């Protein structure tokens, strides 16, 4: 990786605690994310990784703790605010509109950039028509970038899982995010698909300077492409640092492999 300089902290999470009734999903988690870096969140199943991501982009609201994004401090993030401030995400179980084509799905990612209102768009009045052209061009650039031209008119429900994940990524990219949250982008993929997905993620980070926060189980991928890693276990942070530091952390090893009895 070259030509990319990791900048200052843009996201700072302090003492985040999240509870669902009696279940403590996250307990006193603090870490930061620097601009232009690839930050991985790893941990065994049920560690609270997806919950962490949901807190970052405002889907869940923590009971305690503070989120500092781009210098602005807040008790909680609202999800539409997160989107407008340049945070885009993908979901573990794919949240695309299965009946719509790939093209239309990616278009929905442009929502935050659309100025014409609902009525204007419905009848393609005035600026809505011109905007549509500009948005379509941007969407086509994303399609070109992720090499999915051959399926642009295919309804998403008909695509194989690996391609659906790519379309989800495309939709997130269409929003031109400054920070991209990826929830297990490689789940269920074979070696070739994983290589392709890695390549795209690295290209996004390199070409557009997008900060990437990703949850991933494949240790090979994590160690290869991340700049820094946070390790969660049972809702607590047990490791934080570069891949090498984390790899040798005995607590992390114990969490994954178990303790000697």
């Amino acid at each position: 990786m070259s030509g990319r300089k990791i900048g200052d902290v843009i996201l700072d999470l302090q003492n985040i605690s999240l509870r669902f009734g009696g279940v403590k999903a996250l307990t006193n988690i603090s870490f930061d994310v620097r601009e232009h870096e690839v930050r991985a969140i790893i941990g065994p199943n049920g560690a609270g990784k997806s919950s962490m991501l949901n807190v970052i982009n405002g889907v869940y609201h923590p009971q305690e703790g503070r989120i500092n994004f781009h210098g602005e401090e807040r008790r909680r993030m609202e999800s539409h605010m997160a989107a407008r401030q340049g945070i885009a995400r993908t979901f573990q179980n794919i949240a695309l509109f299965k009946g719509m084509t790939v093209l239309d799905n990616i278009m929905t990612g442009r929502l935050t950039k659309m100025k014409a209102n609902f009525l204007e768009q419905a009848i393609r009045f005035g600026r809505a028509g011109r905007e549509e052209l500009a948005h379509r061009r941007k969407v086509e650039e994303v399609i070109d970038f992720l090499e999915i031209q051959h399926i642009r008119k295919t309804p998403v429900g008909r695509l194989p899982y690996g391609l659906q994940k790519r379309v989800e990524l495309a939709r997130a990219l269409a929003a031109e995010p400054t920070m991209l949250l990826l929830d297990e982008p490689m789940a269920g993929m074979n070696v070739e698909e994983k290589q392709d997905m890695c390549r795209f993620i690295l290209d996004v980070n390199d070409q557009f300077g997008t900060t990437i926060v990703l949850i991933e189980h494949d240790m090979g991928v994590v160690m290869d492409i991340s700049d820094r890693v946070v390790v969660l276990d049972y809702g607590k942070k047990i490791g934080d640092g570069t891949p090498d530091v984390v790899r040798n952390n005995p607590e992390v090893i114990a969490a994954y492999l178990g303790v000697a009895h």
Partner: protein
Amino acid sequence: MPAMASSRATDTFPRLLFYHAQVRGEKTAMREKDLGIWQAWTWREVAEHVRALACGLAEMGFQRGDNLAIIGDNRPRLYMMMAAVQCLGGVPVPLYQDAVAHEMLFVLQDAGIRFALVEDQEQVDKLLEIKDQLPALAHLVYDDPRGMRHYNQPFLHDIAELMAMGRIHNQNHPGLLDAEVARGGADDIGVMLYTSGTTGKPKGVCLTHNAFISAARGGVEFDRLTADEDILSYLPMAWVGDHLFSFAQAMVTGFTINCPESGETVMNDLREIGPTYYFAPPRVFENLLTQVMIRMEDASALKQAIFHFFMRVARRSGADILDGKSVPLTQRLLYLLGNVFVYGPLKNVLGLSRVRVAYTAGAAIGPDLFRFYRSIGINLKQLYGQTETCAYVCLQPDGQIKFDSVGKPAPGVEVKIADNGEILVKGPMLLKGYYKRPDATAESINADGYFMTGDAGFFDDDGHLKIIDRAKDVGKLAGGAMYAPNYIENKLKFFQYVKEAVVFGANREMVCAFINIDLGAVGNWAERRGIAYSGYADLAARQEVYQLIQECVEQVNTELVAEGMLADSQIHRFLILHKELDPDDGELTRTRKVRRGFVAEKYAVLIDALYAGRTTQYIVIQVKFEDGRSGKVAADLQIRDAKHFPLLGQTV
């Protein structure tokens, strides 16, 4: 449109280009689907871009007589670069874009390449891999800048940079380019195409402007092509056929070439463009038909009934109607109805609605397949030619289409059969020679100026040429009977279930065969019968599939025995390979012709088992995976006997 006189004004490709820029400057010359829409360039714009490219090359020190390598998918700027190189009196040398770095190494070294234009990062990476073995390579230009941000080698240039440089150079040296274009002669080498070489090293075939222009004009006049044609340019630029259709014929008539968005979108782009003039190798036509048939099997009972009824009508009279022969009125009316319900919509789905002339070549096409397309009104014809003849030797005339021959000698071409059965060809479209191989050139052109094609054939009673096989492959069985492997393999490949076949029998007592099944067709067949399979190797080992293939082999045997002199070539034993033969493993050439010698060596243990009468054989072979890694694949293959038939009046 009147035939263009061969005047000095239009006897080289650069001069043709500037002629079109003048005479039809606003007409679309090239299209490319990019960012979801068809972007177009007019002849005037193409001429301007070519000028900019040529001047850019001149600025970088390109000399008259230099060779420039072109590597990539079909892209307008790559075609433009071919013309730009020709403007300066240089020679474009296109390479197969799916070749790996060390395959390209030989050609790049042999042609002394100093300049290269490649499509994208993938091709750049391949050349960088072998750069230290290419001391002559001084300038590497790329068309698509994607992924190139961190490459900072001084000899790498973005094509936009080259063109900007060229425009400045043109301003500073007005008239220079026109002077260079005027210096070019019709007898100069216009392009160099390397033969894929089933044996031995590839050779650079040098073809002059005059050769390709004659071949192009001949075909254009034969089929009455005009400047209003639209063709889809999707076949490799290194292949002689693409150079004939997408470059030579486009330059000669001024028709439009259309480049698809990517390899995967070709079929979709075909539908969008609706070409009027179309070429595809037989396997593409076969794939199209297989897909149609598979989808028909999923249709409702009513639709299937309608389809089969009208296909019977088409089989009866479709080809005759296309040939202009007399057909009873009721048949014609039924056919008209069929056009509305079946043939029209079918052609539309395939993207072939506007096709006036379609050609196929490169391998034999199954008679049923051929008949199918002609019967629904697609004027599919065969042509015959080689790299050394600008792909222009025989063409099938309209109205005289025979399924088992390749037509009559094309206008301006003389064809004769040597005493040993080899096809000899003479005409203006012949190669000037093989690059730096006077020995090979002398071997291939005889004292009377005839090129020796290396194919064996004969003329039938109507003066149509029939190809038997590659002359050197035609051999004898141990008993002295004639043995033509290609001929037998083609018969096997006519079945949709057989993708590839290799037969053995030279100097042996009997003929045996390797078969590759077609995954699509056989997979579909298996699914309909509820046969589960976990992949290609698993499917290829199934008893039911072996039975299916056995029936195909036995059918071929009945055809062979009916042909008298080939009765002894019936296939006695066969096996189904667990992996497809692949160019990446060196078993096929890049144009998918079998490398007989290589395959015989690699699979020697199987050949021995076939002739030793074994019923199974274990084999381990080296393969190359798509990401470049090598591995071994092992399997236990079943070997079966096939029924063979005695000639009438003889016992086996």
